[in-house]
Structures are given as C-alpha cells and as structure tokens.
C-alpha cells in the first residue's frame, strides 16, 4: 500500500538522515548516565594543578526526578571543571611566538572540540560511533597532559561487559578500573520525620547504579576514541583567540592558501592556541566548562546567580564495606556519602561559605567527628520506621514489589579515616542565553551549570553531546554545512527546554530544602514517606532515575 510505503518512506528518510530516532540517542544518554564520577582523590596534587575536577555523581537518577519531591538522593557535584586552568601552561615560548600563523602549519578540521573533559570526549565518541559522522576530522583542544598519552590504560580481556553502555561502548574500559556498583539508597533529613529507602529489587534490577571516578571515565572515553578508527588530533594547548568572519560572497580571488580564503569568506573559524599554533574548523564546539573561553570569545551572554553555598568534597574510609548511597538533608544543605569502592566513599557536603571554610581548615579528626555527627544525631533525631504510623494506609498500594518499604531505617557506616584532602568550591547557577551562534556551539557546563543537589550537571552535558551528534549526523545526511546556524539551532531547540526545566527543578529543590519552616518540613516528610511506601511511585522513580524511562515531554 502506498500509504504504508509513504509512512515508511518518511521514517526511512528520517533514519537515512542519520539516526534521528530519538530513542537511540536517549538510550545512549541514559546508558552513559548510569556512570558515575566521584571525587578524584589526589592528595599529592600540587597547588598548580588544583583544578576542581571533583565530580561526584549519583544515580543516573536525577534526570527524572521531576515527578517527585522525595527524590533527590545522592548528589553529584559537578564542579565547573577547567581543563586549561593550569597556571603553568606554557606561554608562547616558541621562536615563532610573535607570529602564530607561520609557526606551525595551520590545519583544517571539520570540528574542533575545545575542552577534552567528559562531555567533550563523549561528543567525540558519539561522533565516532555514528556511520555518518565517523569520517569527520576532529581536533580536541585541551591542555590536560593526560589526554596526550596513548594507551595509558591497558586493555585486558574482559568478560561480557554489562549492557549498560551500548551505544558508546566505552563501558568495558571503565570496568577495568575502580568503580562501585550499589544497590541501595537511603535518603532522610534532619527533622527525623521520615525517610525513603530505595532498593534495586524494587525495580527488578540488580543495581541502582555505579559510581565511577572522573579520571576513570575520562580515560575510558579516550581509550574508546583511540580504539576506533576515528580521525582526531589532540592539541595540548589552551585557546587564546577565535575569529569568525561574516559570510561574504565577494568574487576576489585570494592569493593565499585555500584555508585563509575560506576563512575570509566566513566558511571556516580560526582558532589560535597558546602554543602558537592555529587551526581552522568548520564548527567549533565549546565543551570547556563553566568559565568557558569559547563562550566568552563568541560573545554569548549568560544569566544566572550564585547560590550562597559552597560544597566540600573528600574521600573517606569506613570500617566496613559500603554498598549503599546515603544522603541526609541538613538545614544548611545536604550531606551525601557515595561508595566508590570497597570501604571507601566520597562525601559531598553542601553548606554556607563560612561553614565551608571552617570545615576545610579544621583538622582531619575534627572533620571526621563533624561528619559522623552530621550523619547520626546532629541537627535532629533519626526517623524510626513507621513514625507516621500509616503503613496500613498505604498497604493497598503495595504490590508484592515494595519489599524495601518494610526495610527499617539503617544507620550509615561510621567514617573512620580521611583518605584525601578536602576541596571546597562555590556553587552557582548559570545558563547561556544561546547555545549556538555562527560556527560555534556550546555543550555541557559551558552552556549551563547547575546546583549539584541532584547530581545532574554532567548528565545534562551528556544529553547535549548526544543531541548535538545526532543533529550533526542529520545535517551531514542532507549535505548541510555543519557550521550553519540553522542546523545548530535545531540542537538548541532540542536541548534548551530540557535543560531549563531541569535547572528550574533543581533550583526549586535547593530552595525548598534550604528553608526550615514547620509546615514545609511536614510536607517534605510526607513526600519522603510517600516515596518510600507507595511502590508504583518508587518503581517509577527508580526507572526514571536509571534512565529506562523518559518523561513524555522529553521523548
């Protein structure tokens, strides 16, 4: 039937246009969302290298927490990471310092990804894995020396990797290194009115998620990209300037090279790096973090505000093994404990700036005491099971599923030793007014920074990377110039609503939990209680959180 054929035609057209099937790209995101980054514990880090890479992440969760209030569980602190914050970056020391163009031969790339962090590398991996984009010539500009090393992770034979990471398929590298699966999560607050306990069993899963350190994730992505037959070059330098000229159709024939001619006509962007080299690209992707230089150079303005909160991050050791993620909401901010492997966990503690400087400067022992105090009896009582005495009320909602509703409140394991130095940094919310302009597009923290309350920052970034690579793929399918604003605006139209909604929700959570007001406390407690006992709700939360379901709005 022609009717059917026409429908199939449209679908086929869409497929031929490079996997614009939303399910595929979202699955990649969700799979990747299940990875965790935890704090990078580097006690020996010199002052020069102090970058706030401490990313901590939680369950792939927070994406879908929109539906519930009880939700926000573990956090993921996403520090606005600055790949080229290295103060000792080499200055223009080459003899051609005065004339960057002559120094090294400028090369032309299709895409220049400025910023080789998790989101930048995720974009590179995503492009490499799509048939329509894997032929692209990509440059990654990042002064992180770790990126330059080849094969710095040995690849051993692995048993079947968990089918968590199908699209990008970098999970097999992650598994070789330090990571921790966990299957339980407990959330409660200082009022002691209620708690919520999640168990992977509730959603018929083995684990709720996995915590992975930032550097492990980075190196896995890098190994994956190197593994594939993908044209990419890493430029170990910082971006100093970028220029894009307006389109012109003048018929003057430029006597210099083709690249400069194309650049003069506005068909290429020119990037100048700190080490004197320059490169040309059809599209510049800004994946360089919250203080994005690409965004600054492109003249894209941002809106946002600073939260009057700082976060303290460190790694601690327990006496026993910990496979559960814990979070307690305190008056000045939540305290989260995430397992990273065996007996070690990461702590993310949000508090006022004054408190954070106090906590940072106190001795290790005092800090440990403070953490234990905060986890146990500080600030308020513990909830006891069934405090509101209404488990019978909800019994009709319990299926055979809610086994964890009967779990008692558990006391988190004691923290006995500090395993890293404490880092503190301020939290803010920032959103770029546009994600794309001519030949420039922003992804990840460069486009939006959020409160780490629910650990969503990098998840949003992965969503951006996935969406952008789909849009680029569709553009190539129909022969579009990938630097065209109209194409990039499609990416913006796809991601902006989702990002803004998430930011609004997180901001709402942050404000809701920062107020100590009787009726509001009861409301929060009721939300916790509901999430704990109403099993369909709990199952939904877990499914959304682990990326198996998407809200219809974003499907």
């Amino acid at each position: 039937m022609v009717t059917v054929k026409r429908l199939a035609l449209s679908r086929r057209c869409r497929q031929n246009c490079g996997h614009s099937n939303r399910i595929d790209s979202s699955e990649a995101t969700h799979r990747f969302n299940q990875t965790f980054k935890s704090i990078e514990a580097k006690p020996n880090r010199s002052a020069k290298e102090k970058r706030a890479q401490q990313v901590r992440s939680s369950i792939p969760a927070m994406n879908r927490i929109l539906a519930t209030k009880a939700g926000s569980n573990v956090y993921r602190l996403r520090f606005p990471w600055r790949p080229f914050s290295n103060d000792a970056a080499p200055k223009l020391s080459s003899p051609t310092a005065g004339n960057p163009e002559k120094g090294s031969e400028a090369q032309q790339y299709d895409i220049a990804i400025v910023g080789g962090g998790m989101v930048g590398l995720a974009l590179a991996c995503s492009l490499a894995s799509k048939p329509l984009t894997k032929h692209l010539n990509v440059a990654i500009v990042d002064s992180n020396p770790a990126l330059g090393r080849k094969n710095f992770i040995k690849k051993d034979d692995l048993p079947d990797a968990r089918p968590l990471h199908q699209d990008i398929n970098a999970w097999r590298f992650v598994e070789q290194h330090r990571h921790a699966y966990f299957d339980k999560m407990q959330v409660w607050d200082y009022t002691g009115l209620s708690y919520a306990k999640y168990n992977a069993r509730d959603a018929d899963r083995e684990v709720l998620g996995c915590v992975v350190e930032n550097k492990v994730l980075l190196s896995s992505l890098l190994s994956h990209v190197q593994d594939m037959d993908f044209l990419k070059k890493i430029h170990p330098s910082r971006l100093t300037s970028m220029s894009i000229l307006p389109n012109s159709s003048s018929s003057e024939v430029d006597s210099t090279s083709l690249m400069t001619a194309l650049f003069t006509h506005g068909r290429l962007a020119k990037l100048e790096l700190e080490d004197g080299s320059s490169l040309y690209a059809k599209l510049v992707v800004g994946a360089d973090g919250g203080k994005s230089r690409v965004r600054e150079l492109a003249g894209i303005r941002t809106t946002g505000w600073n939260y009057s909160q700082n976060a303290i991050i460190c790694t601690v050791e327990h006496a026993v093994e910990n496979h559960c993620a814990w979070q307690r909401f305190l008056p000045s901010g939540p305290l989260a404990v995430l397992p990273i492997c065996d007996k070690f966990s990461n702590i993310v503690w949000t508090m006022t700036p004054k408190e954070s400087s106090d906590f940072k400067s106190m001795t290790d022992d005092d800090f440990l005491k403070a953490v234990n105090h905060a986890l146990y009896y500080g600030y308020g009582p513990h909830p006891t099971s069934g405090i509101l005495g209404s488990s019978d009320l909800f019994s009709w909602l319990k299926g055979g599923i809610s086994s964890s509703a009967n779990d008692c409140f558990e006391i988190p394991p004691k923290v006995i030793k500090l395993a890293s130095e404490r880092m503190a940094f301020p939290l803010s919310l920032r959103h770029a007014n546009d994600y794309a302009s001519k030949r420039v597009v922003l992804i990840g923290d460069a486009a939006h920074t959020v409160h780490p309350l629910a650990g969503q920052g990098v998840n949003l970034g992965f969503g951006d990377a996935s969406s952008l690579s789909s849009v680029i793929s569709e553009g190539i399918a129909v022969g579009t110039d990938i630097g065209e604003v109209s194409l990039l605006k499609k990416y913006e139209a796809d991601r902006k609503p989702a990002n803004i909604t998430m930011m609004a929700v997180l901001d709402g959570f942050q404000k809701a939990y920062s107020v100590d007001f009787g009726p509001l406390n009861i409301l929060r407690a009721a939300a916790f209680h509901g999430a704990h006992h109403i099993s369909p709700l709990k199952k939904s939360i877990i499914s959304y959180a682990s990326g198996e379901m998407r809200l219809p709005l974003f499907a």
Partner: protein
Amino acid sequence: MASSKLLSQPRWHRLLRRNLPNARLFSGLPTQHPGSVPEPQNHGEPKSKNKFKTASSTPSSLKEAELAKFAAISDTWWDSEGPFKPLHNMNPTRLAFIRSTLCRHFRKDPLSARPFEGLRIIDVGCGGGILSEPLARMGAIVTGIDAVEKNIRIARLHANMDPTTSNIEYCCTTAEKLVDEQRKFDAVIALEVIEHVADSAEFCKSLSALTAHEGATVVSTLNRSMRSYAAAIVAAEYLLHWLPKGTHQWSSFLTPEELTMILKRASINVKEMAGFVFNPITGRWSLSDDISVNYIAFGTKETNNEE
C-alpha cells in the same frame, strides 16, 4: 519493482483511473502560443525558482520585467533570514526525500556520507544553488541550470567558496536547450518549477529527455486544492507575507493526478510521492502523506522493457 508498486493502488493512482472532472488540457490540444499565455508572476518568490520553459525562445516584455524583479533580490538567495527563508527551511526536508528515494533506486548505501558518488544530477531551476550545493556535498556530479543570469552568477560565487561544491557546473540555459545538446543525467530534479512554466507537458517531456536510461526524475510543486489556496495564496502571500503577492497562480498548480498523468505521457512512471507539512509550533517542515498543499514526486524513466 516498478510494477508492483503501481499495482498496489495508491490513492492518487486510483483517482487517476477515474475520469476527473477537472482534468486539464494536456490531452493533446495544441499548446497556446507562449507569448499570449499570461506569464506566471514570479517576483523573487522564495518557494520557486524563476524558470521559464517556453516552446520557443521569444522573450516577452512581461518576462523581462519579472526577470528583473527576481534579479533585484537575487543577492539575498543565501541570506537564510532573508526573503528566501522559507525555502531554506524546507530544504532539508526535500533533500531527505531525494536522498531516500535516490539511494533506494540506485542501490546506494544510505548510511554513507556521500551516497551520490558517481551520479550525474541536474537541478533544473536551481536559483542560487540551494539544492545543488547539498547534492554536491553528498557526492554527486551536479549541473545547475536557471534562466536568470544573475542567479547563476550568485550560485557560482557561493559554490566556489567551498571546495566540496566548487565542482558544480552552472549554466544559464533552459532544459530544452540541453535536450537539443543531447545531455543525459542519472537524475533530473525540478523542484518548485513546474507551476511556473507555460507548458507543463512540454516541460515534462524535456525533463524526461534529459533523464538517462533507468534514471530518476523528481518533481515538486503545489497541489491545486482548497487547502493549498488557503495555505499558499491566502496565508503565505497575504497573511504571513512569506511570498510576494502574485507569486503563485492557483490555476497553474497541478494536482498529483495531473502531474502523474503528464509524467506518464513523458515516459516517466511516478513511483513515490510525499507531502511537506509545516508545523507552525516548531517552525519545521516534515515529510508526510499529506499531499494536499506541497508535494514531491519521484519517478523513473520507463523503458520499453519495463511495464
């Protein structure tokens, strides 16, 4: 492949078999003299290229005026926010259809970034080259023709700026002249042109003559229906001001049945057809089954052996 699709009784084909009350005059009546037919007005309308197909090459005074009007804004062809914005918006959707049908017909790999490698394609009524350039990026050997000299100049300048498109051959000529030169192409594409030619039957015959053996022909135009009157004339020209008033003449629109018929008479069997719909909320065009306003048809050249 050809016959099974025809036998599957597509809606438009079924209608074709019936006697249409509003059948038009390509039943073999002598064509009117091109000079006396009121030339369709094409003041630089974004949705079509100014392509005049006349049986003879006698330029009328009207034609000069219209060419001049079109030439006046031809600088804005590549301004994606300018008067040609609707055409730029619709372009990816048209290309999606072309890509899909041509890949299937020529058995090319749809997942390749340059699926049209080795195919000779002609873009009839290319205007500023909005369609020709993406086709070239997809690997095709593209020839673009247009009756307006300035358009060709703009197209050439723009294409020369990108190495992937600088091989496009642009000529200021007509389809008929190329037929006289006995040029042949694997795929002949004439989008938004046929509603502006004086004699659509002759035009289709020229398109067919340009198509090589077992080649493909793609034609897109507007349907002559109440909906298209409301959308393309009232809404686009008078309400939304997408097109200058008088750009289109509703009476010269072709229904899918008529187009299929005249293509069949020119030995081209229409195999697939799709419509373009505009979503006002997202501002995007998409392919659909709705052929009541804009539609595009893909056909293959019928040889004596196929039926």
